[in-house]
């Protein structure tokens, strides 16, 4: 084990539910003190992966190394180091204080300090300890409950904090608090964060890397457009195709099955202001810029383009954006080589 060993190193990790693979990851490394985002549609395997990273469930196949060591659920190497906050908060049927102190008590330590630690954790998530400490578990709103659950993790100052859709079912104020706390943990304590969220903007803002999952596999860096089937053979027979909502045709190579989903890697998409001259084996679609957003961490601009009810996203380095050639509402053309299409 060296200082530079990544916190997580996954090789050939698979998790089956009823013989269907819910997660299937060949390789994944997560560096120490990094912030990693995880996106993907519901049912893409994010929660299953997070539960394995939190050592709550073990993979059906493959190896998860934690700081270079093989780790298992309940093992002492990880028990007090990794903590997960699930999407829907579950509070123990005890007071707020007891909920937050639960993990501290498991770890033992100086019990005279619990009260101070709990109060600090409560104030981090923006709840006054005087008002909330003695409240029963049922006396909280959804947002408050999620914040208490987060406080119960923060009080442990974990090395790795895994957040599964932490802001999905809470009010805006609570969501803001939760985001701040996560960043604070990363900055102050060097906590490694792994966050699954539908909030792309937030993730792109704070994450060193955003992983996109689809059908249990990692398909890219988080902004890949997924084109769902069914595909029908084109006239020439060389390509398969599908009509989008606005009548445009998407062309793809022969899919493994008519229902397969196609992914076009965003780094192979070319953006034009005018209809491009196609080379053999290329295809283009006409779309409208829906959104431009700055990614301060990666120093890039993310452009979302809507074409026929489908969103394509690509990144452009900030320095290429000096001239304000792109603006929301502008009509653009995206070109991709058919050979770049990958199937899931």
């Amino acid at each position: 084990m060296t200082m530079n060993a990544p916190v997580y190193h996954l090789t050939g990790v698979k998790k089956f539910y009823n013989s269907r693979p819910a997660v299937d990851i060949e390789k994944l490394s997560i560096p120490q003190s990094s912030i990693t985002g995880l996106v993907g549609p519901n049912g893409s395997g994010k929660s299953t992966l997070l539960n394995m990273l939190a050592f709550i469930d073990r993979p059906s196949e493959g190896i998860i190394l934690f700081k270079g060591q093989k780790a298992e659920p309940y093992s002492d190497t990880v028990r007090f180091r990794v903590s997960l906050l699930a999407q829907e908060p579950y509070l123990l049927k005890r007071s707020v204080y007891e909920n937050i102190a639960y993990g501290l008590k498991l770890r033992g330590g100086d019990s005279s300090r619990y009260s101070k630690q709990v109060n600090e954790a409560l104030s981090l998530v923006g709840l006054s300890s005087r008002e909330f400490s003695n409240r029963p578990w049922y006396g909280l709103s959804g947002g408050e409950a999620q914040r208490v659950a987060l406080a119960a993790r923060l009080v442990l100052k974990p090395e790795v904090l895994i957040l599964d859709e932490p802001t999905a079912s809470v009010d805006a104020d609570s969501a803001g608090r939760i985001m701040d706390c996560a960043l604070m943990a990363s900055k102050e304590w060097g906590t490694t964060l792994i966050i699954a969220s539908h909030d792309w903007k937030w993730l792109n803002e704070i994450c060193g890397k955003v992983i996109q999952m689809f059908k249990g596999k990692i398909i890219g860096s988080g902004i890949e457009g997924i084109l769902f089937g069914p595909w029908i053979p084109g006239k020439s027979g060389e390509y398969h195709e599908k009509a989008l909502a606005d009548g445009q045709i998407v062309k793809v190579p022969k899919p493994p099955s008519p229902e397969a989903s196609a992914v076009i890697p965003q780094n192979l998409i070319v953006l034009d202001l005018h209809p491009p001259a196609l080379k053999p084996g290329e295809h283009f679609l006409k779309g409208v810029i829906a959104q431009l957003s700055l990614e301060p961490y990666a120093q890039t601009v993310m452009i979302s383009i809507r074409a026929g009810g489908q969103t394509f996203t690509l990144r452009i380095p900030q320095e290429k954006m000096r001239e304000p050639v792109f603006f929301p509402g502008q009509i653009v053309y995206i070109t991709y080589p058919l050979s770049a299409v990958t199937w899931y």
Partner: protein
Amino acid sequence: MDFIIDGLLQAIQLLLHGDGETYSAVSATLRVSTYSMAASLLLGIPLGFLLGHNDFLWKKHVRTIVDTLMSLPTVLVGLLVYAFLTSRGPLGEYGLLFTLEGIAIGQAILALPIVIALTAAAVESMDEKLRVTLVSLGASRRQVLYSTLWEARYGILAASMNAFGRVLTEVGIAMMVGGNIKWHTRTITTAIALETNKGEFATGVALGIVLMAIAFIVNFSFSFLRNRS
């Protein structure tokens, strides 16, 4: 109708004037239900927990059987226990027939499926999220187990109260196995049956009220406890 009002007045008299027969029946009832509840909880909670917490091949069928046993008729239990405890039965040598312990055995058999089934249901209804939460806060296997039991405490309490209600009010086992012996194995319920047979309806009603009072006190103390915690 008169005997209901008579019964109410008589109930107050029986309790206030320290009627020996009544207190003997109350004491027999309390003792026997304490034995049977202690036994059925000691056995039933762990078994119910195992049944609710673990997955195994025949789990569904075991659940169905246990659920069915919840409706065991008391007289049938009484008859079966009698068959075992009679001097000619396999357990005859222990001299448990016509004793409070004998009744307690029958009542424990009556209560056990209730405790097991309702504890299992309470544990099953515990969210998968509970385990995720406990593990993610650093609980070991053993701590997960204890905390899950503690989280299911209201369900288990409800199971116990339910079983207690059944045990407290049953008459078939107490009559069949206990023999309704005055000063010894006469419980409140067998006393009610006897008084009814003798045509002393008012005394029967009075004893019924005493029984309900006991049930009320026990339920009240548990709900007090529940609100406290």
